[in-house]
């Protein structure tokens, strides 16, 4: 396959970026999107040019490191698929593909297609954990968990924190991510204990980082490689209201 790429090139956070056009030649349809970029980068290296910087790690669709807005869609055109699991057979020979970084104030561009997602880490640090006292490991089945709760918690826990929800949202809102983390922990008895403190602190941190607000449309859900549901945002809305009222009692 031969493709034309319009790639966002940006030196660093303080320099304005622009699109640069590259030709990707002799691409196998069985390559992943990232492997295609590797091939393009090898050509750039041989020509003595600067490589295109992009994030990647596991390349198995589970680490949440890869990103890229491909033709306007975070992680490209396939539903429930990360960029690393997107293959070139999803494109046609001769296609022009526009590749951009996640665009959001809390995700500043570090270089080219790489953005700094530390704002997500800070949201997690504000309450996205369960404080466990040290001691002997409890018996495996000592704590019964209803199947329904376990399923919902697991669905929310599937979030890999890639930030596609923020990238897809027209308001650059992180509510799907934050709601997934809050749901995942609060649906389980271990996380229930700190539920109120968690939801208040994580929402406050989310706001402080400068993410936008949910307008209840669902682009995030459509872009999410793990299919996290908007139901989680409704759950966060319920838990926050409850926590806010109770915190004042």
């Amino acid at each position: 396959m031969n493709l034309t790429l319009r790639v966002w090139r940006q030196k660093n956070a303080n320099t304005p970026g622009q699109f640069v056009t590259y030709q990707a030649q002799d691409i196998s349809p069985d390559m992943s999107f990232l492997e295609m970029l590797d091939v393009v980068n090898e050509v750039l290296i041989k020509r003595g040019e600067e490589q295109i910087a992009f994030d990647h790690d596991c390349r198995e669709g589970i680490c949440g490191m890869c990103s890229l807005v491909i033709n306007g869609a975070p992680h490209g055109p396939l539903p429930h698929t990360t960029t690393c699991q997107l293959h070139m057979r999803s494109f046609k020979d001769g296609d022009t593909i526009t590749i951009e970084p996640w665009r959001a104030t809390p995700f500043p561009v570090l270089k080219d297609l790489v953005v700094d997602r530390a704002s997500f880490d800070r949201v997690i640090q504000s309450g996205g954990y369960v404080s466990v006292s040290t001691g002997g490991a409890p018996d495996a089945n000592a704590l019964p968990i209803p199947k329904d709760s376990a399923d919902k918690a697991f669905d929310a826990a599937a979030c890999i924190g890639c930030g596609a929800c923020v990238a897809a949202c027209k308001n650059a809102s992180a509510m799907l991510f934050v709601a997934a983390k809050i749901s995942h922990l609060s649906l389980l008895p271990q996380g229930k204990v700190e539920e109120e403190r968690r939801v208040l602190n994580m929402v406050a941190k989310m706001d402080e980082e400068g993410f936008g607000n949910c307008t209840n449309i669902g682009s995030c859900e459509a872009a999410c490689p793990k299919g996290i549901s908007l139901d989680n945002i409704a759950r966060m809305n319920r838990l926050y209201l409850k926590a806010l009222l109770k915190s004042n009692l």
Partner: protein
Amino acid sequence: MAASAESLRPSTAGLLLRLWQSSLGKKYVMAITGLILFGFVVVHMLGNLQFFAGPTLLNEYAEALKSKPPVLWGARLVLLLSAVLHITAGAQLANANKRARPVAYANSKPLVSTLANRTIIISGLVILAFIIFHLAHFTIGWVDPNYLELRDLVGRHDVHEMMVRGFQNPLVSGFYVIAVALVALHLSHGVASILQSLGLRSKNTEPHLKKLALVAAAVLFLGFCAIPIAVVTGLIR
């Protein structure tokens, strides 16, 4: 900008402030004021539909509404406050949203979007302009001061006659129909949004939220438009 995590300490006095300062709190304000305004629109439509029962019932209803000034002014105050909060919170949320995405995508078409949510701000602004005109027209009587002097056979304010005369003007009727269409469009997103923002969405309720909003919007549109259409076509004179 919201309060930092450290400042989130219990304080009864600060509850409303904290609500207002947080993104989710402001969404609740949008939802609750939206619900109040939606409730008013529904009651207003039901009141209006008495137009078709003739002058006696409608004028009696209008007189009853105005018979207790504290109740009337209490309701008006709640509605005014709701509108002000709804607009202020909406403007602040929209500004925050803009700040969160300063550089647009080359392909700015969102993955999911409907006409209603793309136009939610502009439909709201046109509705605001319409409300101001509508109050000046029928409530304050600036457009035609004679409206408020109209009396029926038993000496009550003749609201029925006022509506007939008002809607006989095709420009007034035209603007009214457009405004009501925008109210319906606004609510087709708004009603479902109220339920989502208040956390009432789940796997079980989700399929019904959008349907509920669409039905509410359609019923309101038809209910409100029936009157100017009946007047303009001469069915009721």
